[in-house]
């Protein structure tokens, strides 16, 4: 079964810190790796996505790093703010499908 493993389960940082969330996958049959942000009572919202032929992608304060040989990718949040406090999910899209395979989530808390 295709899986995406995510860590840590929870993360606490001070405002301005750089939280890093890591994900790993177990087969090579994925062609997109998006990250979603979810606030309590809301559905997930797309933050940023990367293809496996790219090693890094930056959008605003959010950066994805991708290591194809290690089958790992990570999300970095620069200059984190209290408003970034949410649950973050990595995901992967299998080849020839449109469905998302989600990680288990990381609950981020940013304190002022």
């Amino acid at each position, binding site marked *: 079964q295709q899986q995406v493993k995510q860590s840590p389960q929870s993360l606490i940082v001070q405002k301005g810190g750089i939280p890093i969330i890591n994900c790993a996958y177990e087969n090579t049959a994925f062609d997109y790796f998006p990250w979603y942000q979810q606030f309590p009572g809301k559905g997930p*919202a*797309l933050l940023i996505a990367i293809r496996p032929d790219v090693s890094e992608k930056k959008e605003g304060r959010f950066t994805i790093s991708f290591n194809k040989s290690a089958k790992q990718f990570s999300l970095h949040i620069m200059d984190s703010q209290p408003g970034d406090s949410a649950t973050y999910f990595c995901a992967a899209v299998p080849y020839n499908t449109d*469905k998302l395979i989600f*990680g*288990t*989530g990381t609950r981020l808390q940013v304190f002022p």
Partner: protein
Amino acid sequence: GAGVSQSPRYKVAKRGQDVALRCDPISGHVSLFWYQQALGQGPEFLTYFQNEAQLDKSGLPSDRFFAERPEGSVSTLKIQRTQQEDSAVYLCASSLGGGSPYEQYFGPGTRLTVT
């Protein structure tokens, strides 16, 4: 513009009852997805439509779960003879389809509690 809407937002059902959950996707979105999110977990794929065609139902956990999208717009997820393990948030998402399948827009979900 309006996002994805879902109704009801909360549903309490007694074990054995049938429930129907509705999803109104963003207008013009070709693809529609249903996911199940257990407490403290990531969403898990249930099924996917492209227009009115159900292209993938591999994630439906049992034959008690049924989804339809008869006119290629609104979709309904039906759960028959609900069980306690069906308690979860059911998320609907829609997308334009085409080259960016990861750009899915999610609704707020329906929280189903089976007692």
